[in-house]
């Protein structure tokens, strides 16, 4: 029996949270795994790994995207923001992060990175959502703990904090 041929590795330059990460990955490395294993950014969580739960959501050129449905080798031209990149200067929580803390918008925290990235982008498009719009904003993300009520409150509170800080 011949030894299996080793998998080809690709040199990939990822732009994450304003830093450059040079990684060597096989083509099948999901962006979610590249962020966690190769870049050491474990804030991005992996739940379902087929696009349904939203835990792995990151911002690609500012727009929320499932990192489990992209390959790292496809992300070469993109500017990626993970939950770690939301925090502002001197470790100040971003408005959305602060709102989750204020409103008890998380329990176990597994789903939270995906909600934070999704809502950050959602509030850029719609800085003053109604409660219904807040619900619609998070409709593509699953949370098994909170029952969503406090996450909806967090969206509204985050909009308020952004106005206060402006």
């Amino acid at each position, binding site marked *: 029996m011949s030894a299996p041929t080793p*998998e*080809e590795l*690709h040199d990939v330059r990822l732009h994450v949270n304003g830093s450059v990460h040079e990684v060597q990955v*096989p*083509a*099948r490395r*999901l962006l979610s*795994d590249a962020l966690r294993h190769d870049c050491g950014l474990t804030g991005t969580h992996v739940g379902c*790994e*087929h*696009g349904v739960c*939203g835990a792995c*959501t990151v911002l*690609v050129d500012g*727009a*929320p*995207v*499932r990192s*489990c*449905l*992209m*390959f790292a*080798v*496809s992300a*070469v*031209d993109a500017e990626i923001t993970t939950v770690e990149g939301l925090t502002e200067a001197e470790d100040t929580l971003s408005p959305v992060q602060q709102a989750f803390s204020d409103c008890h918008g998380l329990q176990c925290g597994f789903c939270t990175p995906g909600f934070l990235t*999704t809502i950050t982008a959602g509030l850029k498009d719609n800085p003053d959502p109604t409660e219904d719009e807040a619900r*619609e904003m998070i*409709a*593509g993300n699953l949370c098994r703990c909170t029952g969503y009520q406090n996450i909806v409150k967090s969206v509204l509170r985050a909009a308020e904090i952004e106005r206060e800080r402006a």
Partner: protein
Amino acid sequence: MKPAPFAFLRPATLEEALAALAGEPGAKVLAGGQSLVPLLSMRLAAPSMLIDINALPDLGHVTPDATGVRVGALARHAHVLASAEAAEVQPLLALALSHVAHPTIRNRGTTVGSLVHADAAAEMPMVLRLLEGSVDVESVRGRRTVPAGELFAGPLESTLAHDEIAVEAFFPALPAGAGVAFQEIARRHGDYALVGVAALVETDGGEVTRARLGYVSVSDVPVVVDVTDALDDPAAAALAELEPADDIHATAAYRAHLVKVLTPRVLADAVHHARQRSAQKDEKDMA
């Protein structure tokens, strides 16, 4: 839950992509990946090579004109949905696209990819059929136009040859005196429909001269039914041509029930839309 190994190419020109595809029988095109990557991760597909078309130039367009809307292979669902001009030329695009998945999926998934993926539970293949649109495909052998009526071969199967890349879809404009409507029932907004129904009606002097209905998630291919001669009971005419099936989301009987409830509603909406547009046009002509 990880894909099997594959070789990877990210060509910078269409010629390079077509040559690579023609030269590797096990290769597959990667567009938005919103359907393909789950299939790879679940190991339901294991292509020998992926040809990532996301770096190809000039395929991201959404171009409306008087005849219809041209959508390039790299236009994301979100871009098509955001085009007010496209919605003006063919309102059914935005009506249906707002039901295609969640915004996060729409940011990456392409409308052309959804057509080629040919899922009977997807909104846009049905919309293309109902509007009698087409898809332009290229290969090393040249370019051809595939009419929507010839695009869908079976469940998750289009008639594209292995070496062909779809480069553009064409959704015809809504003619004067015509109206459209769309409704679907899903467990949550953004989930795949249990049943979705679209209607396209043409009117003349307020009278319906042609009425067609399109169905999502009812049979295993996108189905379009002409109900022009069955306006008194369009749901019965539709059910005669549909094959509702059981799955984990709904029973066949429940799907048939939804067809009965949604069909007259959506048809009435489309007739109303047609009359409204005719009235607006009359007003404009008078002014």
